[in-house]
């Protein structure tokens, strides 16, 4: 059986059967991208890894679940980032806020555990603390963007540094453990087919999509990002909306931090490095405009999947870790470049 992707492509996409196979392939690839954009890229990527990984290990049920589990945290951060970017902002603090919230939430659990509270209640309170703290961080940077109108880049850059520093300060630089078993069970569930973080991610994506596309809040976010002056002159509470998107992004970072701590069994102030860049990459790959006013959560999901599949597939093909970075960078630039060409 012939599995060459070249062959598949020529069969599926060349319009002119008379051209040579190579020429048709060259013609079909960009054309395919143009018409179906990022989804097509994703499908191509899966086809490629499906074909070229050893024993087609990429296309197994366990590997798909594995990819989903690996992208869960990035996708949760990227959901919040989608709101922020559609509102014409940016949030560089998500990785650091994730670390801070993981550490603080975990410390709360350690303290509560000493009082003899049940494991479940301890886990619930600790998670609430982490998520709440994330929301507070977002409120802070969001207020700086909305009221004195600091550039989002600066406000969240400052927040990033403060959160990273505080994460080290509160725990003295040492990872926080042990965490209650009821909590670590969320991230470590060996006898479950689908890990709980995947369910959480699914719920977050579903809710984010619902709010963005069908709720007045989502409508306002598009309006503020698309034309802030028009939004203001239409009576929208622009400041409140801007602050809210950063608070949401912060809360989701907190959630991400708790999931990460649960997976690892401890909270590390060094965690979450560069997570903001992965989240931004997913949002941008998903077709959301950095200028604001345009984009979808489902697009971001595709973007996160592409990054996840690249990580997974390249590792399965035993591509050197450092080259993986180079390739990921190329893919992001290429995808956005094609998207721009398509619009023009």
């Amino acid at each position, binding site marked *: 059986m012939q599995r060459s992707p070249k062959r598949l492509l020529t069969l599926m996409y060349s319009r002119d059967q008379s051209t040579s196979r190579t020429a048709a392939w060259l013609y079909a690839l960009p054309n395919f991208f143009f018409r179906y954009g990022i989804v097509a890229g994703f499908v191509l990527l899966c086809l490629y890894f499906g074909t070229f990984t050893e024993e087609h290990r990429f296309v197994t049920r366990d590997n798909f679940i594995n990819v989903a589990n690996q992208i869960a945290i990035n996708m949760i951060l990227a959901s919040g980032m989608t709101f922020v970017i559609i509102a014409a902002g940016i949030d560089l603090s998500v990785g650091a806020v994730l670390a801070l919230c993981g550490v603080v939430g975990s410390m709360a659990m350690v303290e509560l555990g000493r009082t003899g509270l049940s494991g479940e209640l301890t886990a619930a309170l600790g998670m609430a603390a982490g998520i709440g703290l994330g929301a507070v961080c977002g409120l802070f940077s969001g207020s700086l963007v909305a009221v004195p109108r600091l550039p989002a880049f600066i406000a969240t850059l400052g927040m990033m540094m403060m959160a990273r520093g505080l994460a080290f300060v509160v725990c003295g630089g040492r990872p926080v453990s042990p965490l209650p078993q009821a909590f670590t069970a969320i991230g470590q569930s060996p006898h479950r087919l689908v890990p709980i973080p995947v369910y959480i991610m699914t719920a977050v994506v579903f809710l984010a999509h*619902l709010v963005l596309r069908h*709720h*007045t809040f989502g409508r306002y976010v*598009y309006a503020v990002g*698309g*034309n802030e002056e028009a*939004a203001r002159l*239409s*009576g929208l509470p622009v400041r409140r909306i801007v602050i809210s998107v950063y608070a949401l992004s912060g809360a989701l970072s907190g959630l991400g931090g708790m999931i990460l701590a649960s997976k690892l069994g401890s909270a590390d102030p060094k965690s979450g490095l560069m997570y903001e860049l992965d989240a931004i990459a997913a949002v941008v790959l998903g077709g959301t405009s950095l200028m604001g006013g345009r984009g979808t959560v489902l697009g971001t999901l595709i973007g996160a999947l592409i990054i996840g599949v690249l990580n997974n597939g390249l590792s399965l093909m035993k591509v050197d870790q450092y080259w993986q970075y180079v390739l990921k960078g190329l893919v992001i630039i290429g995808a956005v470049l094609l998207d721009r060409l398509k619009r023009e």
Partner: protein
Amino acid sequence: MSPHATTTEAVAPALEVRGVSKFFPGVQALRNVDFTLRAGEVHALVGENGAGKSTFIKILPGALPKDAGIMRVFGQAYEPRSPWDALRAGISAIYQEFNLVPYLTVAENLFLGREPRRAGGLVDWRRLNAMARDVLMRLGMPLNPRAYVANLSVAGQQMVEIARALSVGARILLMDEPSAALTEHDLERLFEQVRRLRSQGVSVIYISHRLAEIFTIADRATVLRDGEVVGTRDVAGLQEMDLVRMMVGRQVETGSLAGGAPGQEPLLQVEGVSSGGMVHDCTFEVRAGEIAGIGGLVGSGRTELARAIFGAAPRTGRVVVAGKVLPPGSPRAAIRAGLGLLPEDRKLQGLLLRMLVRENITLANVGAVACYGFISARRERAAARPLIADLDIRPPETDRAVMYLSGGNQQKVVLARWLFTRSQVLILDEPTRGIDVGAKAEVHMLMRRLTDQGAALLVISSELPELLKVSDRILVMREGSIVGVLAREEATEEKVMALATGAVLP
């Protein structure tokens, strides 16, 4: 030189324009314009908003191509393809927006791109500053070459612009509303400057809305109207009203859209409103069923007044809508009280271009088609459809992105937003700018229909015929203040123009 040239006409004029025309889609901006600028004269160019002045002064320095006609500079054929060609021919334009780099010094700005260099390509700072001092001294400008442009007053920056133009060898200077941003004192210095230039043989085209200035500084004046030259006159011996009559001149449109008698109840009360130096102590009211027009020249503070009333710009003073006092600075509160604003620039301030017609219509009142915050697309379409039909928005589709609609239809979408929000008082800032004649008439009819249903309208328009046609009462603004109120029966174009320009009525 032509052998027939004799005595006084022996010197070629600085600039000769013959038969220049310019078309834009849907408008003829300039029609067969003839214009002569004598060497060493100050020649004023006047006309109403939209008379073609802006187009003309963009064509001269090559910022816009002309469609027909010829130009000669000191007898030489002149065909500018870019501002660079204009500079080489000795023509320099100074627009209202200065082209200066704020965080460079006066000297650096004067010689930007042609700094004196030392061996190795380094800038020779000492020579640069010395050269700048020379230029400034020759022009009698009391400026420090080492001062940062950002720290200069508007008048100072204007001097830098003038000095730069002359230092590159300009012999013809175009000044577009040079007095617009100047104080009384600076204005005197500007006049001195212009007189000094004239005595040095520089020819100046001076554009201003303020007639008094023209009588102070200009030798001759050319009046443009609807893209055509009405005439050129020597300023000496001319009356202000002669100029006003030339500017307005057209036959007054007979159409008038008088409504029934307005109600007694004032829906909008504006008391002592001032805003940011652009609006001073404005007081008036608009009653239910009434259309009040605001006339005045561009820059007279009309838009600023509208934005201050609506809360989009800071203000002092009291605004009352249907009995409710509005807090300043809150469009949200204004909208809740029943006020709506159709902004001057619908694309920048009114519309979400990428979003759908229905989304734009419901924007100010989305709650009405939502349940627990969740928007029902079905209810939203149902709400938008009657408005689309009523205002005849074409194509009549609820789910089309607004960016694909024509200007007139876009304007109707913004209007539909306020109809959907059931605003009782509407402020319409240039409601028909850039839309075609048919759509314009429709918008006018619609305005009257709204007042017949009990709304109060405040309409800003730069087009006098429109203002006279729709307004029951016209408030005329000049330099931020309301300088006169004309009832429909007594309002004429001449009277509005006279008030707006500050001309003395005979």
